Structures are given as C-alpha cells and as structure tokens.
C-alpha cells in the first residue's frame, strides 16, 4: 500500500499545553481512516496541522512522499489536502459554483472576465459527484444546511481532476448537522470516493466511524493511544481507550466533597432554545457541584450561556433562591446572584486594561460607591483580601488584568463574582488554557465555594474532571438531558458510562 499522507513524530505546543505529543499517523491510498477521541484529545490540533493552519514544532508532515511545511489551508489544498470544515466555509452570498471555485477562478477567465457558463458547467460536474441535483447558479443562502455541507464536499472533490497526485479529504464531524437520509447519502459518497481519494474521518459517533472507516486511531491527551482495524474494533474497547488511566482521587480534592444541602439555589424547568437545548429541568442545591457532560453540540454550552443571560431562552422557568426570575440579559442574571466564569476568559472574563482591583469590583454594582464616587479605600481593602484569600500571584492590585497568567486571571474572575455576592456559579471550562499547577488551585477554590454553600454548575474540560469534581452529573445529548448520575465519593460513575450516555 502507498502512503499518501503521514505525520511522523509530530509535536505541537501552546503556552501551557502540549497539544500534540509525538503523534504518528498515516493514511494509505484509497483508505478511509477514522480518528476519535474526547474533546481536547488533540484531534482538532492534528487537523489544523494537516490543513496548514498550524505548523508542527517537531516532526514531519509528509504528503504524497514529500515533506512539507504547509502555510495555509489554500497551500494544503494545492497539495491535494482538502478539508470539509465543521463550521462551514460556504459563503451564503455567493452561488454554488462561485463557492466551489472561490479563489481559483483563473481557469474560467476569458479576456479577464469570468466565463459563467463554463464555470457553472464545471460546477455541475462536481455536484454530480455528490449526487446533488441543483442549479450551480443558486445562491447558497437558499440551500439547506445539509445541502451546503454537500457543496462543501463537492468543493473538496473538485481537486480530484485538477491536481497531480493523490487527493486527501478530511471530514470533520460531517454528520453532526445532517439528517439521517443525508448521512446515508454521505456514506454512499464516501464509499464511492474511496475509489479515487483517501479520507480522514472524524466523528463523535463511534458507530459511524466504524461503519465507514477501514482503520481507526484513538487519541487522548495529545497522543495516539490506539490503532485498530475497524473489522476488529469493539465499541466498548474504543471507549476504554478514549478514557484511559484511573483517577487519582486526591487530585480533584474528593476528600473535600460535601453532601449537598436541601436548600435549592437554582431551579430550572422546561427551558428551551430552539436548535440549542430542549425542555431542560434540574435543581441545583447549596453546596452542590453539578457537572454537565456532553459532546460539542450537545447544548450544554448554550445552556450555560443562557443561564448567564448571554443567550436568552425562548421558554421555560428559572427560579433563583425560590423566586422566579427573568433572565434575558446578563445584568438580570447578575442581579439574581448568578456568576458566570466564561470559557473565553480574555473575551468575556477579564478586562485587560483594568487593573486587578478594578476587575474584581466590576460586577459589584454600588458596593464601592460613596456619594456617586468610587470608594478607593474600601475597594483596595477588599481586593487585597481576595488576592490573599485566593492566592492570586500579582505584583500588585494595580497590575493590569491583561498581564497576569491564565490561572491568575481566572482567580480574579472568580473573585469578581465572590465580591459581587453571587451564590450560583456557572463555571464554563474553568481550567481551560491554564497550566497544571494552577489547575489544582482552581479545584481547591471550587471546593471552597461548595463548602461555603454556593451552588456550582460545572462544564468541565474532560470527563475525568467532571467526574472528579461533581457530586451529581447531568449528561446532555442533542439538546436534552439524557441521563443523570449521582456521584458521591467512593461511588463515582465510570467515564465509560458517561460516554455511552453522551454519544
């Protein structure tokens, strides 16, 4: 078999994280290779390396027997690697034909003008490959989501007749937006495609991966941990490999897990936002850490943002501390006592130009006001107290928030909500992008908050983290709560149970 694409001993680091650690994979001609792994396992970094968005720190990327340093997706495309993006790159203001050949109109130019007839005819040929019977002059804004995905695939396939050498197509979660009928069609196309291209298929849905691919790689913690021919693979084993090592109870401070109070801090009923989550109901008690697990697109991020007032729900009731509240904007959530620690800390968490104490008092409303002016003494005192209490490492409380490390920024954001007096905390990936030492400190702080009787809604980075920290876990799938697990110390659910409820 001829290898058409290979990553050899590839490593890639970002500040604080080793995203890829000595990864080697290869794809043979006319082979369909599956790639699976949990969120954060390194799949998307690997994809971005192969499509030229990122470059390897160490190791080699070999395409069609040549070692390359791809500079951009276009560069990758010109070398025969086409990516079908998860977030679609089809532009709604252009026609199907224009989208397929965007940036490559050269071949249709006549006297400097685009020959539309010829371009549309060529597009029709490409559409035929994906069995899409549409007029290439249709604007893609008028297509369904699934059809747009097919156009995207047709665009990738248009490489086929245009370059020398092999074509490699990367499909990133292509089925997540498709109807069953379209999924079947896609699989038929993949089978057909195999005759002339090699395919890397990434999906959360293991059954689908096994159905279409010849061979599967499992990734975890930035490494390839398992490789198996699909014919020999068992779903249960794959789950095991995705999960990996046993938990260390002390790492997540399980000894500090407290039994939840009877007191309900947050009660949600029938909460719905079309296309994101549906009929969500749960209660959050004082002292409870309620984890929400789910894959990307399960609706858990949208739910967290909804409760923070950032993306209002269409229907449903929210009660905070027994009183019914309307949460359509962040100030209503804040007033109700809900604090939100966002996953994008630098966008929605920390204000870079404000100093530590200013950041800490940002949500505190009138607490530091006297006669309409800022009471600097009181503010300074409170900030100093919280810097000490949370162990924020900063030269001074006058240091701009933007110049702290990720972990310390996170502590400042936490302090902001503690000072504002929030008793419900929504933690959206609170340890994302912070280094290992700081992670443990954040775990400690989460335990502190629970011990003080706050209610915590946790969207964790990994399954390990959600199990280790939570006292109860909701699993979301396709916008609904699919299962609830009690997670008392000593009787925590297994990761594999969660995964089976997630996918």
């Amino acid at each position, binding site marked *: 078999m001829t290898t058409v694409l290979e990553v050899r001993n590839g490593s890639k680091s970002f500040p604080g994280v080793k995203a890829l650690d000595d990864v080697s994979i290869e794809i043979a001609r006319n082979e369909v290779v599956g790639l699976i792994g949990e969120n954060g396992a390194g799949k998307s970094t690997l994809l971005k390396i192969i499509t030229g968005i990122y470059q390897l720190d160490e190791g080699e990327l070999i395409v069609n027997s040549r070692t390359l340093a791809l500079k951009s997706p276009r560069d990758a495309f010109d070398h025969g690697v086409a990516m079908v993006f998860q977030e679609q790159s089809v532009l709604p203001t252009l026609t199907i034909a224009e989208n397929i050949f965007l940036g490559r109109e050269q071949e249709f130019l006549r006297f400097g003008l685009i020959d539309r007839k010829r371009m549309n005819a060529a597009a029709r040929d490409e559409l035929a490959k994906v069995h899409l019977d549409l007029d290439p002059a249709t604007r893609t804004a008028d297509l369904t989501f699934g059809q747009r995905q097919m156009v995207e695939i047709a665009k990738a396939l248009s490489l086929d007749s245009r370059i020398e050498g092999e074509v490699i197509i990367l499909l990133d979660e292509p089925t997540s937006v498709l109807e069953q009928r379209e999924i079947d069609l896609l699989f038929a196309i993949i089978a057909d495609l195999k005759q002339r291209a090699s395919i890397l298929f990434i999906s959360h849905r293991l059954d689908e991966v096994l159905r279409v691919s010849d061979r599967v790689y499992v990734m975890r913690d930035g490494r390839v941990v398992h490789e198996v021919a699909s014919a020999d693979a068992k779903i249960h084993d794959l789950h095991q490999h995705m999960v990996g090592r046993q938990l260390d109870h002390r790492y997540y401070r399980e000894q500090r897990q407290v039994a939840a109070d009877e007191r309900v801090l947050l009660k949600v009923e029938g909460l719905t936002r079309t296309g994101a989550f549906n009929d969500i109901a749960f209660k959050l008690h004082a002292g409870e850490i309620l984890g929400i697990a789910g894959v990307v697109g399960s609706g858990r991020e949208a739910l967290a943002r909804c409760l923070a007032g950032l993306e209002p729900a269409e229907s449903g009731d929210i009660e905070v501390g027994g009183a019914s509240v309307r949460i359509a904007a*962040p*100030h209503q959530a804040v007033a109700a006592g809900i604090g939100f620690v966002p996953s994008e800390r630098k966008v929605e968490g920390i204000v870079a*130009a404000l100093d530590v104490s200013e950041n800490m008092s940002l949500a505190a409303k009138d607490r530091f006001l006297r006669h309409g002016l800022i009471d600097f003494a009181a503010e300074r005192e409170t900030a100093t107290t919280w810097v000490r209490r949370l162990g924020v490492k900063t030269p001074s409380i006058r240091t701009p928030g933007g110049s702290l490390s990720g972990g310390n920024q996170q502590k400042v954001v936490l302090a902001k909500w503690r000072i504002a007096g929030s008793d419900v905390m929504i933690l959206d990936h609170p340890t994302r992008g912070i280094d290992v030492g700081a992670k443990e400190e954040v775990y400690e702080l989460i335990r502190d908050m629970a011990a003080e009787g706050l209610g915590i809604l946790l969207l964790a980075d990994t399954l390990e983290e959600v199990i280790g920290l939570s006292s109860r876990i909701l699993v979301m799938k396709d916008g609904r709560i699919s299962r609830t697990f009690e997670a008392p110390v000593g009787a925590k659910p297994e990761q594999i149970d969660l995964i089976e409820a997630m996918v």
Partner: protein
Amino acid sequence: MPAWLKDQLPLIVLLLLVLLVSLSDSGFMAPGNLLVVTADTMTLFLMASGVTFVIMTGGIDLSIQAVASMTSCIVAALLPSLGFAAVPAALLSGAVFGLANGVVTTRLRIPSFVATLAVSGVATSVAYLVSDARSVLIAAADRDAYLGWAVGEIGPVQNEILVGLFVLVGLTLAAGLTPFGRFVRAIGSQERAVIASGIHADRIKIQAFVISGTLAGLAGVVMAGRLGSGSPTLANEFLLPAIACIIVGGTAITGGVGSVWRTFIGALIIAVVRIGMTFIGVSVFAQQIVFGLILVAAVAITMDRSKVATVK
C-alpha cells in the same frame, strides 16, 4: 520603544516642538504670547475633550463640528430674547444631539462613524433653520453681558483658558473618580466582558456621546463669543484637527486607553505645529494636508492591533 517612553511621547514631542519654535521665533516664549496661544487652542480642545470618551469606548463621533456650528447659531439667535438662558439652551441642544448619536448607534446598532455622520446632517439642517442660512451677529453688549465668562479676561489670563482648565479638571475627575470613567475604559478594552459582568454598557456609551455633544456645544458657544457671530459653517474644518489632537495625545482609536489630559496635550501639539508651519510660511490651506497625514500616522502608531482580528 520602552513603554514609559511611548507613554510620555506626546509630552516630549510637545516640549521639543515648543523648543524648536522658540529657537526660531524668540518672541514665542514670552508669557503673554504663550497665554494667547493657549487661549486660541481652547476651542479646539473643548471640541475634542468630550469625544475623547467616545473614542475610549472604541467608537467615534464625527458630528462634533456640525453640532458646534449649530450651537453657535442657537446661542447667537437666542441671546437677544433669552439673555444668559441662551447658553444653557445651546448646551442642551448639543446634549440632545449627543443623545441622538448614542441612541442611534447603540439601540439601532449602527456603527458610530455612520450614525454620527447621519446625525450631523440633521444638526446642520437645524443650524441652517435657526440661522436662516446666514451669519447671526451677536451685539457687542449682549456678548459682554452674557458671554463674558468665555471671552473676557481675568488679569492677564484669558477666560477661554479658564473654561478649558475647568473642563479639563472636571472631565479628569469624572474619568478618575466615578464608575463611568472606569466603565468607559473597560468597554473600550473588552466590551463583552463588561456586559457579562452585568453592566449596561449601552448606557455608558450613550452617556459618553451626550458628554461629547454637550462639549461640542460648549465649543460652539465659545467660538460664537470669540467671533461675535454664529454661523452654520462656523466650526467647519475643526473635525479633523479635533480627532487628530485626541489621537496625537496618545488615545488609541481602538479604545481602552486614553485620557482628557492627553487630549489637552494633543491640542497644544496641534496648535504649536500650526504656529510653526505658519512661521515657516506654509499656507493655512496646506496645513490641512499636514494634519491629515499627522492623523493617519498617529492612528497607525497608537492603534492596538492585537484587538482587531480583521481591520475593515
């Protein structure tokens, strides 16, 4: 360039320019002349002072010259009948147009450079209506009675300077001591984090526009007093220098950093550059070219590019 140097650059540039001009013109450093120069700069500073807040939030107000012209007409037209009350009336009309700017850009979600451009059209129309498309003269008696606070003198010091200092101190205190000032900085730095913290960012932005409109209005009143008339085109040619002195002072067009004090320095820089150019014989008309280029250069230097993914 080290951070402290970049921070103090406007002041250093100002001092160097003053030195340069005084070397070639020995009369420049005379106390009397310095006062005159400062007094002449104050209308420009007043126009730019309020916009500073708008720019610090990351927006812009292109309506200031139209608003200033309008209030010059309003104050000139109303002085004979209302007396001193014409002054607050003019300031109020400036505030109303500032409010319109703020509401249009935040509630209707129109980028501020277009919103304020559109509102300035309305302001100009009002100016023409009020003035009947002519210069409105202010009687000397009215001027002395009601605008003396702006154009008179106390001892050797022109009142424009006092008005300017009053605004400078007032706005600096507002920026430093009130939540408003802090939120303005915060919005310019990271608006989404401010909103997520439960703060009504839109209200703060509207307040900034109101301050900008009011102070443009004040600038119009002072100009009317100095020139003895109001006219719908009185403040034309002031927009560019006003924006330029904010940016030259070191307030970034991308928002988040800046101060009214910097704008004050910036206004003096522009004034000294203008004097220097006049001295070496650059025509008044050609100075506009230089200001255009200074503006572009200053934007390029002060802008924080890490904050914008795509520059449009």
